[in-house]
């Protein structure tokens, strides 16, 4: 295919985030900085994980069934690590929030509103999501701009680029909105919300294991989108409830 196809794949993966960025983030410099630093954090987590797993890669895939186990361990460890990082991110954010509030008092401006806090969480989540899409999908997209396309053996129904950008879109959604859920859960001390985020992340990661079996992507991708939709709906419900609460108060 050509440039059009490449741009199409890129937009498929990142288009929603792009519009979200333009609509909600780009006007507020602080949120842009949040996106950048969260992206950097995710990149560093990826580098650390890669450093740990580099010695074991590539897995010997000749007996094709035996690749399941190492991949599931890999995904498990990565998800655990990244969820730990989310807690770290929350700690940093908490400190930052105090500083911001102190600063707002000093310049006699209102403190952070509830929507502000949610926007910061959204920006942080979007940093994670965008980093995911960029490193797992966009950086492999270079050949798609050239005159050919590429199919993987296990998923011969669609071009590889299409599959990977679709998966990336699902993960962008999950990452972006699960950060909002998680921050809200931490702030409220809501156990369910705190737990739901790692579970969703882990399940989504494990669902990609389905792609290992031949033709699995036909089943795996819809399931993944179910998870993304679930995250989206849960986040929407939660935000709605909190906003309604704060208005009633």
């Amino acid at each position: 295919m050509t440039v059009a196809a490449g741009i199409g794949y890129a937009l498929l993966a990142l288009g929603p985030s792009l519009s979200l960025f333009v609509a909600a983030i780009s006007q507020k410099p602080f949120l842009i900085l949040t996106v950048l630093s969260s992206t950097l954090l995710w990149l560093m987590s990826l580098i650390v994980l890669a450093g740990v797993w580099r010695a074991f890669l590539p897995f010997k895939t000749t007996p094709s069934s035996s690749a399941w186990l190492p991949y599931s361990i890999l995904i498990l460890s990565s998800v655990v690590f990244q969820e730990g990082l989310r807690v770290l991110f929350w700690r940093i954010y908490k400190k930052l929030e105090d500083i911001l509030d102190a600063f707002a008092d000093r310049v006699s401006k209102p403190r952070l509103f509830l929507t502000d806090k949610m926007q910061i969480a959204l920006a942080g989540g979007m940093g994670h999501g965008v980093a995911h899409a960029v490193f797992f999908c966009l950086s492999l997209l270079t050949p798609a701009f050239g005159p050919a396309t590429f199919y993987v053996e296990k998923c011969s129904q669609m071009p590889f680029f299409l599959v990977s950008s679709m998966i990336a879109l699902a993960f962008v959604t999950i990452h972006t909105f699960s950060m909002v859920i998680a921050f809200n859960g931490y702030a409220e001390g809501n156990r369910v919300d705190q737990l739901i985020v790692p579970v969703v992340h882990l399940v989504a990661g494990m669902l990609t294991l389905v792609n290992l079996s031949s033709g699995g992507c036909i089943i795996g991708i819809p399931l993944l989108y179910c998870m993304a939709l679930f995250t989206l709906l849960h986040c929407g419900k939660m935000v709605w409830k909190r906003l309604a609460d704060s208005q009633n108060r």
Partner: protein
Amino acid sequence: MEDGGGGSILESIGSEIIGVMSPVSICMFLVVLLVYSLTNTSASSAVRTAANLVYLESPTDTPAEKLEGALLNALVFVILIAFVTFVLVLLYYYRCTSFLKHYTRFSAFFVLSFMGGPIFLTIIQHFNIPVDSVTCFILLFNFSILGVLSVFSNGVPILIRQSYMVALGIVVAAWFTRLPEWTTWVLLVALALYDLVAVLAPGGPLKILVELASRREEELPALVYEARPTTNANISGSRGGSTLAGLLVAGMSQNDGSDHGVELQAVSASPRTNIGNYENEIASESGHMVINMDNDDEEEVEVVREDQEETSPLMAGNSRERSRSPMMYESTDNSSRRLNEVAVAEMMRPRRERDGDEMIEVMNGRGIKLGLGDFVFYSVLVGRAAMYDLMTVYACYLAIISGLGCTLILLAVCRHALPALPISIALGVIFYFLTRLLMEPFVVGTSSNLMMF
């Protein structure tokens, strides 16, 4: 700007930093695009420039040979730059300012026409754009002339000035990306080290230059990107001086009200035959720099406030500052508020230059400044990364931007000239090699099996 319930602080914090980061990002993005689309056509014919005078890398050499040659190249290049900078400082010391300005203009013209021209030609050839040579020549000439005029003149809108600075950066960086690989990496590291020495060491040429310029209350006769808050002038009233930098330091100290515009600043001695010797630094360019320097040791932390903060409610409490530099403040304090309001109102108007006493206020009315050298070498790094893979580009971009952010925050804490290259280049190089050696096999290995998490 009324959303979010009427002026939440999120809208104002960090705008200065974004004001510096966005042009850098644009510059890097365009260089990557250029490198990406043109590497096939401009076959890797090794060009001999001043940056590889000694050694011309060929793919058959052993790594040891390449390293040795690259080190030699970098050494020669840095010595050359240091020499040229010393000459320029000397010229500036003896007040040959107009010569320096004309020289800078000439080099801007040279870069835009003679170095930009071939790049335009390659673009035209590559995309088969139907342009006849006369039109092309006239367009190029007009483009260059406007660029030259915009370098130091008053009559050009700041936006054009800024875009020409970015354009200059792109052109020079595009040339630098043609250097061979090893030389590029060693050169970047060497320049970062040089930058560190030249700005921070006592007697470093750039330090001398900045101190001289601030003592004389003049602008540096060099190519510097000014991130003045011009485009946002209409909302700057509500932005009441809350930069992230100001915020960070404000969290630590109660002593605000220093009116100095602390600026990220750069000197670029002009490029000569495919070399730019660009250096950069961050300077406190206000007229009272000497006094500041003396007092810096006594004050542990001081608050940095950018220009607009003078109109903010936090204005009180600069009595301490005033007592430190009585003469300066008596002469400027009364008028500074008014002048800054004028400056805000007239942001879109060209800069006033050389107006004697007004210079202090005018200087206070400016934002962070970043040298063209930073643009160039950040872009060179990213452009070099683009020749490997897109993944390294993203990693390097993030590393450089975060390095720039760290430098800006350090600037807020240190309050004197800081080199902007070292942190960014160090992070960029580290991330490049980490990405290339560790991350890429990992990511490609997992995601080509459609594993993601």
